[in-house]
């Protein structure tokens, strides 16, 4: 695996996913998820893009490449990344059917393949995609490339010589700080930063930035699914709606009816 020797130039690669918008309450129609609804950049991918931008503004990173694997419309999220400040993008385009069936291991393999060309020094990705909720790709890319992973990052420091980073991670009972050599993969959690808005002038500038388009089917990745969807449905809604008039009644019911006090 090649690593560019110019330590002064550092390239951040940001993986972004174009997902059903965070605010949409998704519905199942005819056994399939109805996806003809508003889409936007996965919220954790915004945090990833912002993380790269902070390093660029600090003069640590010299170039940011945004990457997405998606259908044609996924280019909107690349435009968003470039409006936030990414310099250029790579769009691995798939047909809708290919994208619908895409599994996280396949996505990770595409990123691993792209590393041959992109040679990222630091990979930023969101910790979790809010559509599949798998929370896989950063860890898989790290394993496939045999480079370290700093998952659920809430804090990040780059060493002065740019050869290593310290990642503060959210763990079950608090936080943990790890150091690791670059190149590495960082998955971004909520408290890492607050993503900037893409201003209209920046969106206009973004439309002029280059997007290198590749075909998913030509990436040399086996797209045969390992997991079949047997059934897809809306969950059974829990029945609630009980009311109490005041705190006294609440305490009474909890003690005598629910028997949880």
């Amino acid at each position, binding site marked *: 695996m090649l690593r560019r020797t110019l330590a002064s130039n550092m390239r951040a690669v940001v993986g972004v996913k174009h997902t059903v918008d965070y605010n949409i309450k998704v519905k199942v129609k005819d056994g399939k998820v109805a996806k003809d609804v508003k889409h936007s950049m996965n919220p954790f991918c915004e945090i990833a893009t912002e993380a790269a931008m902070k390093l660029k503004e600090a003069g640590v990173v010299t170039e940011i490449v945004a990457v997405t694997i998606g259908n044609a419309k996924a280019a909107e999220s690349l435009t968003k990344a470039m409006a936030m400040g990414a310099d250029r993008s790579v769009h691995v385009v798939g047909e809708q059917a290919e994208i619908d069936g895409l599994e996280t291991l396949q996505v990770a393999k595409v990123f691993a393949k792209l590393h041959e060309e992109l040679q990222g020094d630091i990979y930023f990705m969101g910790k979790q995609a809010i559509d599949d909720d798998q929370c896989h790709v950063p860890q898989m890319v790290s394993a496939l490339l045999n480079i370290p992973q700093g998952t659920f990052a809430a804090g990040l420091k780059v060493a002065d010589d740019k050869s290593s980073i310290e990642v503060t991670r*959210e763990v079950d009972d608090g936080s943990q700080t790890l150091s690791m050599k670059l190149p590495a993969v960082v998955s971004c959690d909520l408290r890492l930063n607050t993503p900037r808005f893409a201003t209209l002038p920046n969106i206009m500038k973004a439309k002029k930035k280059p997007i290198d388009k590749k075909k998913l089917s030509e990436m040399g990745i086996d797209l045969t699914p390992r*997991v079949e969807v047997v059934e897809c449905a809306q969950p059974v809604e829990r029945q609630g709606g009980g009311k109490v008039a005041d705190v006294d009644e*609440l305490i009474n019911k909890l003690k005598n009816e629910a028997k949880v006090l």
Partner: protein
Amino acid sequence: MFRGSRRVLGNVMVLAQVNAKGVTPASLSAFTAAQQIGGDVTALVSGKAAAETVSKVSGVSKVLYGEGSSVEHDLAENITNMVLGKAEGFTHILAPSSAMGKSVAPRLGALLDAQPLTDVAEIHSEDTFTRGTYAGNVVTKVKSNDKVKIMTVRGASFDKAAAEGGSAAVEEIPSSESGQSAFVSAASASSDKPDLQSADVIVSGGRGMKDPSNWHLIESLAGKMNAAVGATRAVVDAEWVASDLQVGQTGKIVAPQLYVACGISGAIQHVTGMKDSKTIVAINTDEEAPIMALADYGLVADALKAVPEMTEKL
């Protein structure tokens, strides 16, 4: 493993964790899921002391453990390598839905070339499982065709296996430093309150608490009820509280006996993390808030008044 007309049984490995209080609740749920798959259940843990504790879990046949500094801090690269050294012959590898489980399971998938599944909520057979997507708004039943099925287990969906009654043999296995990441420091954010994932009662606060200066009302009620404290993503995002309190799609999934939601509207992303609670109480000024349709007992009131009133009257 039997074939033909017999039901296919597994040879299941469970990555388990132990903390100061014993085998973690998430790990105990993973053991239950393992037993539902059927077949032999082997635990894999870090440290001999942890292995002795896990050897007492009911239904575990054997406990493998790595020892030494390489396994002290749940470094994902080290744990992955330790598991890979022993993965041969296992049909299933289960991990709890913890920071460790989520960091390691996908690595195992990549290196064993298997597609893992996150937060499996039901085991139908050795190859068919149910998990949620879109913040639990969609429930999918899936069949894995991989030779080894790798998954994290949704703790709230499985009863905890008994932590006593077992007497498994323990065996040390090789472990080593990958040299890829190194531990620098750790900070435990939690207080003396019970742990979110094992507490019987959780008192949780949302934006309806209006200001971080009001958060002490949540803590007081929790203290009175000997409850754990939970929070919505909104208040974690606003940095009122540490993120280890976050309940929801991108935080912790909980299923206590009683969940008291104070000033929480009930957005899907939060609900998916607490809808398995046995009893749900909601205190909100908005009668139409989504949480009210979910709650067993909804109190239409200002949490800033009702919460201290409840603390006082309990």
